[in-house]
């Protein structure tokens, strides 16, 4: 089990991080290249002001009509995404490993708080799963890959939660946790999880088109 742990937390983690950062740069660069080749005219109305105005409204809970129309979804999605990003970055045991490996460290969450945030992520994933299955308008745009993606996102948190509490087989759960994290990192640029990279661009485009072409709000 230790050989496997050292593999997933060593060489495989390097591969995962290289795919994550390299893939992210590649995806954004090729998107910009495609725009420059095929839709160059959008630069005639792309605007920092309308872009940032749109991003600002959509990044604040209940600051848009659509957020207000779906209050439950709004609360769930904001807390889910916040916990999803903050927990792994500020988890004490992760920072301890960064410190051991690269001599860098930063502020960490108390374990009890991180535990609650992990539960929020898992419950959020359950909510999105139920929503995909039950809401007709969501079901309509759902394909098999959406369930795979949701599993990829939830897996590091479920295994991390079980490993932290040392329920079931701890060494196995720890190894699966690191493996699940590697898979998530590598998958982000190449699946629809790439909305993490593209959402600011999408929002900027929408904001600019609504602001400068249609002279309307997009929130």
């Amino acid at each position: 089990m230790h050989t496997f742990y050292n593999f997933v937390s060593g060489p495989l983690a390097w591969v995962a991080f290289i795919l994550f950062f390299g893939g992210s740069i590649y995806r954004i660069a090729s998107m910009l290249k495609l725009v420059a080749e095929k839709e160059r005219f959008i630069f005639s109305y792309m605007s920092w002001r309308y872009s940032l105005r749109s991003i600002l409204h959509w990044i604040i809970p209940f600051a848009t009509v659509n957020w207000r129309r779906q209050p439950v979804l709004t609360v769930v999605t904001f807390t889910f995404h916040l916990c999803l990003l903050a927990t792994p970055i500020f988890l004490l045991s992760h920072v301890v490993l960064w410190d051991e490996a690269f001599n860098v460290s930063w502020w960490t969450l108390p374990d009890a708080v991180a535990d609650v945030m992990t539960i929020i992520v898992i419950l959020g994933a359950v909510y999105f799963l139920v929503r995909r299955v039950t809401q007709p308008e969501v079901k309509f745009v759902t394909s098999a890959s959406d369930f795979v993606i949701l599993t990829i996102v939830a897996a590091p948190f479920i295994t991390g939660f079980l490993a932290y509490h040392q329920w079931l087989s701890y060494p196995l759960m720890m190894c699966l946790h690191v493996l699940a994290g590697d898979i998530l990192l590598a998958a982000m640029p190449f699946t629809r999880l790439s909305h993490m990279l593209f959402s600011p661009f999408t929002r900027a485009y929408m904001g600019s088109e609504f602001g400068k072409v249609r002279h309307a709000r997009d929130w």
Partner: protein
Amino acid sequence: MKTVTRIALSLAIGIVLAITSAWSQDDMTIVDNAAFDNPQRTPSVFVHDAHNEAAGIDDCAECHHVYEDGKRLEDESSEDQSCSECHDLKGSGGQPSLIKAFHTSCKGCHQAQKKGPIMCGECHIK
């Protein structure tokens, strides 16, 4: 309370106290984490004598080292001191923090020897 009960009770308490104090002196079973204000994990399991017997460690300075100006002093050992006397919670320059000193000392050796626990919960058992 009857006199017999009184004597029996005080004897029982005395025996328990005697045994437990003897335990705490002879067999170290966990790493003392008193230096941490708000420890986030359980103290690490470490049965000192059994560990060193199994690992074949005779030289105290293997773990209880002494450093001076960034150099390890060959013939000196520090088993009369607490780790936290040198390794503070923050760490500074080349001197690792207490957490890092524990981790690199235990896990570092386990990795090098390819023996012993290396994952968080293998030492910090709930």
